[in-house]
């Protein structure tokens, strides 16, 4: 049996490892579009800030080599599902019996006049982007981040921290967010507002309800952007963090059904026999809404990858779906966890909110089920709540304790 995996990041690696657990002899090939090697994508902002260097973000030991998995560096440009071949940009063809598409996402490119012609605008999706940003950050006096999502905010903070030649002040960094609040969809209004205040405290300017209209090239090599409201902001460097879309362009004509992402069923199989998809490229089912969605989260990609791998190797596991919101992070010194349904305004949920010493929590219940949690400042025992949501465990006598943010494992077992 020849297994081929396109994409060598967390979904692909998890799948390859899972295949190995069921089939120790099969030929497994991972086609990786990134020559750099196996690295932890969420760490790339730390290359910009200088907190980590390239070798720090690599896997401690090569997860593929250790398992006797073949890694081919190259870019898949076409999949022929009739002859069961993957065509690479190099012209090579790789035959498969079972195929996994784990090509993740690419940064969206908003249509902004001037963006195409500048040499100082980058997304932040892979190690090369981070290296470019780090390099430019050494000399830039200002940066504008387009988009105030998690990646945008992390990029902004990293640029503020970026290593500067001796004696040079940190650069001016602004985030331009179209919506009324940053971290849309990742935190509720109050949680996001608390994080925003801390980010601003670290010297990042945040423009909300605002858009970048065009890039202006200024005098003496300094550039600016024009905002929707009319003003301008200095922008020697631009980070494009306006979202991500699944990497599916190369599947055109393959017969593999796509919508936003590659459509998969609950076993992560596509419409084509023996062709699976997992991770940020897949369009599966969101657990709480039951609707189709693309996940965009590491933990989900890991889970999907593993499950797809098991099924490719003859298993029959089903995926109940992922939570569209399942975030943990620490931003500007404030830790937070959010999961499930977090935006509840006027939607008929039972909501409990607590505030204490700058900490904030919110718990959301529907009927007997916890469906959402937001913990900002104090994230202790977050997993108890997330587990109740993710595994749809009905609350029993413990309703009250859970909704008062006093859940304990002992209590839940009682």
């Amino acid at each position, binding site marked *: 049996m020849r297994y081929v995996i396109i994409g060598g990041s967390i979904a692909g690696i998890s799948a390859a490892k899972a295949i190995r657990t069921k089939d120790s002899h099969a030929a497994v090939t991972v086609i990786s579009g990134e020559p750099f090697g196996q690295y*932890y994508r969420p760490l790339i902002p730390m290359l910009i800030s200088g907190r980590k260097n390239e070798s720090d973000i690599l896997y401690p030991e090569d997860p593929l080599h250790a398992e006797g998995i073949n890694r081919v560096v190259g870019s898949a440009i076409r999949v022929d599902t009739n002859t069961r071949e993957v065509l690479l940009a190099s012209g090579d063809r790789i035959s498969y019996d079972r195929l996994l598409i784990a090509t993740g996402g690419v940064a969206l490119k908003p249509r902004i006049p001037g963006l195409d012609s500048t040499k100082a605008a980058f997304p932040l999706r892979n190690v090369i982007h981070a290296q470019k940003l780090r390099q430019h950050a050494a000399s830039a006096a200002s940066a504008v981040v387009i988009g105030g999502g998690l990646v945008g905010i992390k990029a902004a903070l990293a640029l503020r921290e970026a290593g500067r030649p001796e004696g040079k002040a940190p650069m001016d960094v602004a985030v331009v967010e179209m919506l009324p609040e940053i971290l849309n969809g990742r935190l509720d209004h109050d949680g996001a507002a608390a994080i925003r205040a801390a980010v601003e405290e670290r010297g990042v300017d945040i423009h909300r309800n605002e858009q970048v209209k065009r890039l202006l090239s200024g005098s003496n090599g300094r550039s600016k952007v024009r905002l929707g409201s009319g003003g301008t902001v200095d922008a020697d460097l631009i980070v494009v963090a306006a979202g991500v879309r699944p990497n599916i362009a190369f599947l055109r004509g393959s017969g593999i059904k796509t919508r936003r992402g590659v459509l998969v069923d609950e076993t992560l199989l596509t419409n084509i026999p023996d062709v699976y998809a997992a991770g940020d490229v897949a369009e599966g089912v969101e657990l709480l809404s039951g609707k189709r969605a693309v996940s965009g989260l*590491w933990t989900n990609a890991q889970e999907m990858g593993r499950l797809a791998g098991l099924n490719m190797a003859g298993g029959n596991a089903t995926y109940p779906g992922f939570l569209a919101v399942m975030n943990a992070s620490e931003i500007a010194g404030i830790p937070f966890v959010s999961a499930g349904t977090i935006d509840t305004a006027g939607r008929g949920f039972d909501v409990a909110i607590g505030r204490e010493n700058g900490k904030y929590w919110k718990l959301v219940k529907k009927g007997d089920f916890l469906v959402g949690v937001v913990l900002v400042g104090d*994230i202790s*025992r977050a997993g*108890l709540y997330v587990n109740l949501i993710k595994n749809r465990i009905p609350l029993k006598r413990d309703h009250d304790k859970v909704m008062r943010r006093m859940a304990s*494992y*002992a209590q839940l077992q009682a």
Partner: protein
Amino acid sequence: MDQIFVKPEKCMGCRSCEIACAVQHAKDKNLFAAVLQTPPPMKRLFVEASDNVRMPVVCRHCEDAPCLNACLSGCLYRDQKGFVRRHKERCIGCWSCIMACPFGVVSRDPDKHIAVKCDRCHKLDTPACVAACPTRALVLVEAGNLSKEKRRKIVLSESP
């Protein structure tokens, strides 16, 4: 892998295990130094008491460990004995493990901004919490390759 078993019916809630755990993870592994250490050493297990239960909640070093699966920086790993441990220097404080642990036993070190969890006192024959428990509510079962069910029976058959 040796496993720590918890027998809630024997737990008096004395918290000896918590203290022993914190001391074991202090710079100087004795109570007096640990009490004076700033910031204070952190415990890795938690005695929880509710209306009708009292029990230490301790890391299971799960076979399919949610914390390990969720780690996105290469910090958590399974060591040769089967324990889920940290490469401390790799933790970036993303808290994915805290979000993932259904037992709530991974914590955040507020000073170092890294995750803290049970390391099963991997250098000791008997974990500090087990050694400290006066009522044997915490016991170490040398699992070898016994099935889970057999291990449970051993625990149950131990004299009270």
